[in-house]
């Protein structure tokens, strides 16, 4: 029997995987992808909780989150392009001129 906890814990696991991305990769685009993983983890929570509560709110919230994800992706990718023009690189380690 699949319980709500199954989904919630899977979602937590997915969220944690998303958070690791920022520490492993040397490519800004992959960092953005890990944010998408995190958002999807949250989406799973919404859908699962909505289903177990028997309401459609969860699904509707997921639509909004998708919109937000799309908007964030658009701005984020535009930034990636802008920043790539400066350094011809996508490594986050190359952008440390602002510090201390």
């Amino acid at each position, binding site marked *: 029997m699949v319980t709500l906890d199954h989904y919630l814990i899977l979602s937590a696991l997915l969220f944690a995987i998303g958070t690791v991305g920022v520490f492993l990769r040397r490519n800004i685009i992959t960092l953005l992808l890990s944010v998408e993983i995190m958002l999807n983890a949250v989406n799973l929570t919404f859908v699962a909780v909505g289903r177990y509560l028997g309401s459609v709110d969860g699904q509707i919230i997921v639509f909004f989150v998708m919109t937000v994800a799309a908007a964030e992706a658009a701005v984020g990718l535009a930034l990636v392009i802008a920043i790539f023009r400066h350094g011809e690189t996508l490594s*986050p380690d190359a952008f440390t001129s602002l510090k201390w």
Partner: protein
Amino acid sequence: MLALIPLFPFIGFIINALIGRRLSKATSGGLACLAMLVSFGVAVVAFWRLLGLPAEARVIDETLFTWIASGRFQAPLTFRLDPLAGLMCLVVTGIGFLIHVYSTAYMHEETDHEYARYFSYLNLFAAFMLVLVLGANLLVMFIGWEGVGLCSYLLIGYWFDKQSATDAGKKAFVVNRVGDMAFIVGMCLAFASFGTLDFRAIAAAVAALPPEVTWGVLSTITLLFFIGATGKSAQIPLYIWLPDAMEGPTPVSALIHAATMVTAGVYMIGRNAVLYSHAPLTMEVVAVIGVATALLAGTIGLAQNDIKRVLAYSTVSQLGYMFLAMGVGAFAAGIFHLYTHAFFKALMFLGSGAVIHALHGEQDMRKMGGLRRALPITYWTFLIGALAIAGVPGLSGFFSKDEILFRTFASGHSVLWVLGTATALLTAVYMFRLIYLTFHGKPRYEGAYEGAQEAHRAHDRAAHAQGTHNHGGGGVLHDAPMAMAIPLVLLAIGSVVAGYVGVPHALGGSNRIETFLEPSFSPPAHTAPAVAGTHAEPGVALSGEGAHAEADAHGATHADTALELTLMVTSVAIALMGIGIATLVWLKRPHVAAALAARVPWMHRLLLNKWYVDELYDATIVQPIKNSSTVGLWKGVDVGVIDGAVNGTGWLVRGSAAGLRLAQSGSVRIYAAAFFVGTVLVIAFYLVR
């Protein structure tokens, strides 16, 4: 009307700050002086009106507007003139005016531009000081409190091209901020406890309470205020800034670091006299710190060679006296001493300024000597000041200092009395050491030689200069010009006569000043009966002192008179002894001093190095921070600023340095890591609860 008193200097500040650069020196200086003069005039008129009121009702309140008012939270912008504030106002505006006048001559070598800047600061300072004095509640006082601190900072560092001056400014500011912090917390606590910040309302609220015999909220509030006062008034452990503050122009030292601002701490305690008298534990602390500071600074003053530093330590020492008075409950005596001290200390600072002016900036007493003939006005006025501070009978310092010592003894603090008397001895010694080194003996200043070469006719005499020579440097030395001489003379007159408002009963006087000031130290009239009852209780000898003073006002008992006379004779003897020692050591047998220094070199070194207090601070606070911050933290940061700022923030910076350096590395990964650590901690915090 009261608002006009600080308003005029403020207008002077505005004008000099905005268009001062386009004005000539005469105009901007004259403007500043005029502002002070008018302010003084208004103060006199206001004071006169105050005197016209019956003794118990001598309070003039003037609310400009409601500054902060919402619910329980009330703080009107109110000025209040009562005897205490009135006296302070006269001192600040009167002596302030004289110092402004003096400054017009002293600072005349500055450019037009700088001249206006100087006077704008000076006016601003006066305005803030008057706000501090006139404020009817803690919050208004705090405006002035912070303002004078800021002005002091600006004025000490006025000659900012001199590294030592900017350092001294920073040091003063850092130390003052430590005190201010305690003051603000005390203020918040007072508001939380009494629901008001008005001095009279607090006094009325406190008067209904029994004195706090064990440690409690009153003691805490008063102690916090006292810490604030130690910062502003240069007491142990926060006195270290004042001697360095001498890097500022001499008139500034006279005005801020002798006559007015540094007395703010004493004044603040006087303002809160009722509060303090209900916290006997804090009073003990105040008295002990006061006398300890007096003694310590006195010993240091003994071995200093910089003329202004001697005066600075003397100021610290005299402030210690005032705190002693406050601590033993002799509020009126403390304020009386504040008032007389303002005259003679301003006089001596201005006198030293005249000396320095004449010698083109020389401040080392070892390079002076024999200036008596060359600078007669300066010499004689200075001598009056020194006699006054030493406590020679008939001059103002005698009356006030004696009053403090008598009160100390009468309140049962015989140990403190002994220490206070010892300090009196030291005072006389180092003051006359200063006089002898500066004005007597052989001239040792460079001008004595150069001037001789320039002036042919003086050549021989200068070359074979004898102890009594007078023309050697005379060719190039000028005594104080008019604008400097007049303030000196006026202050000298003040130093002589100012004490006569407080001739003690023992000498057949009526101690008018104490009677006059007493209402300021008692709770508002309508609660007076309750207070009298409280004071009558036997367990409260300390706080009852105010009541004793009142009793004295009406007629001292025989025993008291006898005691007072005995003490008086003792301290006169002590003062004369001190002068005698100084005469013996530094005038008659100058080699004795050197021999003494050679005989007990450790003592001399200890005193010369100011008990190594600065070094102690340096070793325990400054150095560790410097070390930790030079280990590669925040590269390329203005090191001078770190030093200055870090003095105060020391342990904070050191403690967090390693982590912070790692943190702001510019790498977004690290930032995210900090974010995650925070999140994990936040969640963990909730889960383990």
